[in-house]
C-alpha cells in the first residue's frame, strides 16, 4: 500500500470500523478525545516552558496564568479521565464477562467530559479566568482580577465534567453488582464486598484451605476502589463549584457577599482533602490496579501475593482519605498534630502501598521470564520507573523540615508531579492503549514499530529529563506559579524546554502512528453509529 492508501484506509486496510461493536467504538471515542486533550496539554506545556525561558511578548501575563489554570485541568479531566474512564467502562464488563449496565450512560459520560472540558478551556482562553486549580479562597471570587461571567462559565464547565464523572461511578458499581437479563440472580452484596477488598483482607487471616474464592478479579477490585475516591472527589468539586458560583452570580446580580464568611484555612483543608482523593487516592489505586492487570495480561499468570495486593488497595483507600495535610505543612495556622500525623506519617504509608504495588508487578513479570520486550511491557516498565522516582520525591517534600525549603518550588511540580503524571501515569496508560489496541480494533496492525520505539524513548527521556531540570531549578530556589523576567534560571529552563520538546515529538509520533494504523476513514468511522447489539463487547470472531 502506498502512503495515500495507508493514510486513508489504515495499515494494510485491516481496520474496519463497520465490524466494531458500540462498546468498542465508545472506548475508541474516549481515547480519541483523551488524546486530543493530551495534545492541548502538551502544547500549553510547551508555551509555558518557553515562557519560563523568556516571557513571550504576544502572550500577556494574565493569559499565561489562564493557560497555567487550564493546563492541569485539561490534562487530568479532558485527557486522563477520558482515557481511564473509557478503558474501565470497557474492561469491567470485559473482565466480568457481562454487559455494561448502561451503554447510554457511558455515552453521556464521554459527551459530558468532552464538552465540559471544552467549555472551561474556552472560558479560560477568552476571559482569562485564572484562580489556578488550587482556587485558594478568596481568589476565585476576586473580581478586581477576574471576570465573574468568565468564572461562571468556567465553573459550569467543570461541573459538567463532574456530572459525567458521577455517571461513570454509577455505571461501574451497577455493572459489578447487577444481574443481566436472563442471568441467574447475582449475589450483589457479596460482589460489592469482594470489590471493596474485604474478601482479600479476611483471606489473609485464614488458612490456605479455608480461603474464600474472590468473586471479583483484582483489576476490577482496584477499579472499584479507585472509583470510590472518584465519587468523593466529584462531590467535593461540585460542592466547591457551587460555593464559588454563589459568589460569582451574586456579584453579577449586584450583591457582593463577604469573602470573609468563608474561612480560608478551613476551605484549604476541605479543598485538599477532596483533591488528594485524585492525587493520592484514585491515581495510585487506579495505577496499581492497571499495573496488576497489565502484568497478568503480559505474562498470562496470576498475580504474585494476590491477597496482600488486595489488602494494600484497601489500605491505600483509607490512606487517601487521611493524607491531605501534607499540602498544608507551610500553613502555620494548621495544627501541628495534623502536619505530623496526616502530613508526614500517613503520607509515608504511600511509600509502602505504592512500593508494594511496584514490587508485586515486577515479581509477577519476573516469574514469567523470558518475556518479549513488547510495547505494553516497555511502557509498563517506564510507568513503574516514573512512580519509582516520583513517590519518594513526594515523601521527601512531605517532611516538616524539607517542606520549609521546597514548598511551591519547581521541585514539587517537576520531580514529583510531572514525573508522576507524565512518566508514571501516562506511560502506564500508553501500555494499556498498546495492549488494548488489537482488542478494541478487532486486530488492526500498528503502522510502525520504529515510531513506537521512538515514542517510548522520547517520552521517557523527555519526561524524566524535564522533571529533573525543573527539580534542579527548584532546589536553587525557583518558584512555581510565577514568572521570572530576567532569565534567573535560564540554564535549567532551557534544558527543561528541550526535554519538553522531546515529549511533544513523542506525542506527535504516537498520534501519527495511530492515525496511520487505523486510517482517516477509520477515525471517522469510530464516530459513526454501530449496527451491532450494545450488549456485545467484542464480536464473537474476535474472542
Amino acid at each position: 500500500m502506498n502512503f495515500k492508501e495507508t493514510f486513508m484506509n489504515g495499515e494494510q486496510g485491516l481496520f474496519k470500523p463497520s465490524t466494531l461493536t458500540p462498546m468498542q467504538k465508545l472506548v475508541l471515542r474516549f481515547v480519541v478525545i483523551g488524546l486530543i486533550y493530551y495534545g492541548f496539554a502538551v502544547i500549553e506545556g510547551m508555551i509555558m516552558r518557553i515562557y519560563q525561558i523568556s516571557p513571550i511578548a504576544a502572550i500577556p501575563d494574565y493569559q499565561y496564568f489562564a493557560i497555567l489554570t487550564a493546563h492541569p485541568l485539561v490534562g487530568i479531566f479532558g485527557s486522563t479521565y477520558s482515557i481511564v474512564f473509557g478503558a474501565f467502562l470497557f474492561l469491567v464488563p470485559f473482565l466480568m464477562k457481562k454487559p455494561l449496565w448502561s451503554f447510554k450512560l457511558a455515552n453521556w459520560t464521554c459527551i459530558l467530559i468532552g464538552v465540559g472540558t471544552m467549555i472551561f478551556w474556552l472560558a479560560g482562553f477568552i476571559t482569562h479566568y485564572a484562580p489556578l486549580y488550587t482556587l485558594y479562597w478568596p481568589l476565585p471570587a476576586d473580581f478586581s482580577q477576574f471576570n465573574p461571567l468568565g468564572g461562571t462559565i468556567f465553573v459550569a464547565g467543570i461541573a459538567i465534567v463532574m456530572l459525567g464523572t458521577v455517571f461513570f461511578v454509577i455505571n461501574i458499581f451497577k455493572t459489578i453488582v447487577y444481574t443481566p437479563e436472563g442471568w441467574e440472580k447475582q449475589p450483589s452484596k457479596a460482589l460489592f464486598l469482594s470489590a471493596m477488598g474485604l474478601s482479600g483482607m479476611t483471606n489473609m487471616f485464614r488458612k490456605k484451605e479455608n480461603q474464600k474464592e474472590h468473586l471479583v478479579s483484582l483489576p476490577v477490585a482496584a477499579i472499584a476502589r479507585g472509583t470510590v475516591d472518584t465519587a468523593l472527589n466529584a462531590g467535593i468539586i461540585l460542592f466547591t463549584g457551587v460555593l464559588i458560583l454563589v459568589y460569582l452570580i451574586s456579584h453579577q446580580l449586584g450583591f457582593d457577599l463577604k469573602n470573609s464568611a468563608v474561612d480560608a484555612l478551613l476551605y484549604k483543608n476541605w479543598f485538599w482533602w477532596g483533591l488528594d482523593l485524585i492525587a493520592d487516592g484514585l491515581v495510585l489505586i487506579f495505577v496499581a490496579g492497571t499495573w496488576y492487570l497489565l502484568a497478568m495480561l503480559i505474562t498470562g499468570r496470576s498475580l504474585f501475593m494476590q491477597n496482600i495486593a488486595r489488602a494494600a488497595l484497601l489500605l491505600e483507600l483509607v490512606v487517601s482519605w487521611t493524607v491531605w495535610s501534607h499540602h498544608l505543612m507551610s500553613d502555620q495556622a494548621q495544627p501541628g498534630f495534623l502536619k505530623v500525623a496526616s502530613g508526614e506519617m500517613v503520607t509515608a504509608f504511600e511509600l509502602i502501598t505504592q512500593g508494594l504495588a511496584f514490587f508485586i508487578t515486577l515479581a509477577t513479570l519476573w516469574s514469567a521470564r523470558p518475556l518479549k520486550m513488547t510495547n505494553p511491557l516497555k511502557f509498563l516498565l517506564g510507568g513503574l520507573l516514573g512512580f519509582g522516582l516520583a513517590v519518594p520525591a513526594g515523601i521527601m517534600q512531605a517532611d516538616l523540615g524539607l517542606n520549609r525549603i521546597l514548598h511551591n518550588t519547581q521541585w514539587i511540580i517537576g520531580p514529583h508531579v510531572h514525573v508522576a503524571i507524565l512518566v508514571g501515569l501516562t506511560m502506564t496508560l500508553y501500555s494499556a492503549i498498546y495492549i488494548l489496541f488489537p482488542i478494541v480494533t478487532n486486530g488492526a496492525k500498528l503502522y510502525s514499530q520504529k515510531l513506537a520505539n521512538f515514542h517510548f524513548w522520547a517520552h521517557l527521556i523527555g519526561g524524566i529529563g524535564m522533571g529533573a531540570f525543573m527539580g534542579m531549578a527548584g532546589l536553587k530556589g525557583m518558584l512555581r506559579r510565577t514568572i521570572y523576567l530576567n532569565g534567573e534560571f535560564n540554564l535549567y529552563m532551557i534544558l527543561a524546554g528541550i526535554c519538553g520538546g522531546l515529549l511533544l515529538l513523542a506525542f506527535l509520533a504516537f498520534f501519527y502512528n495511530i492515525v496511520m494504523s487505523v486510517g482517516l476513514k477509520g477515525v471517522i468511522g469510530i464516530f459513526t453509529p454501530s449496527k451491532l447489539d450494545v450488549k456485545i463487547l467484542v464480536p464473537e470472531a474476535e474472542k
Partner: protein
Amino acid sequence: MVDSQVVLNGQTFAYTFYALAIILLMLWFGYNVTKSGKASKVSSALFYSFVTLLVVLGVSLHIVTYNTIPWASMDLNRKEIKADKTFEITVENHKFILPSEKLVINVNDKAMFNVRSNDLTYGFGLFRSDNSMVFQMQVVPGHLNDILWQFDKPGVYTIRSTEYSGPKGAQMILKDVVEVIAN
C-alpha cells in the same frame, strides 16, 4: 542554626543517588526479564524484607530530619520559644507593608515574622541574592502566620511572595530588605 543551603545540598545528593540507582535497577530488570533462562519465582522472604525496608525508610526519614534539621523542632515548638525580635508585617492589595524600611537582625538572634493578610492568600519567603530560598510560609487571610528563624551568618535577603494570588502577585518582591548583621 545550620543554613538551609546545607540541607538542600544534602537532599540533592541523596535524591540524585537514589534516582540513578532506581534507573539502573529498571534497566537491569528490563534487560534480564527478556533473557532466556529458567523462570524463577520470587521468594516471599524477599517480599517481606522489602516491605520491612519500606516501613523503616518511611518512618526513619521524618525521625532523622526532625533530629537533624534544626528549624523542624523549632517550628513545632515556636509558641514556647522567646523571640529576640518580632516583625509585624501586613499584606494587602498585593503589597507587603513592613514595620520599617529595612528589617535588621543580629546573627544568631531568633527573629519572629508575624505576617497577616487583609485580603488574599499569599506566601512569604526569604531569598538570597542568588535567588535560592532561605525559607517560606503561606500567608492565609484571617489567621496568624508566624515563623521563627535563626540566621547563622550575616547576609542581605529579599522578601518574595511564594504563593500565587492572581496575575498581580507575580512580582511581589521587596529586594534586599532583610539585613542580618554581625553582633
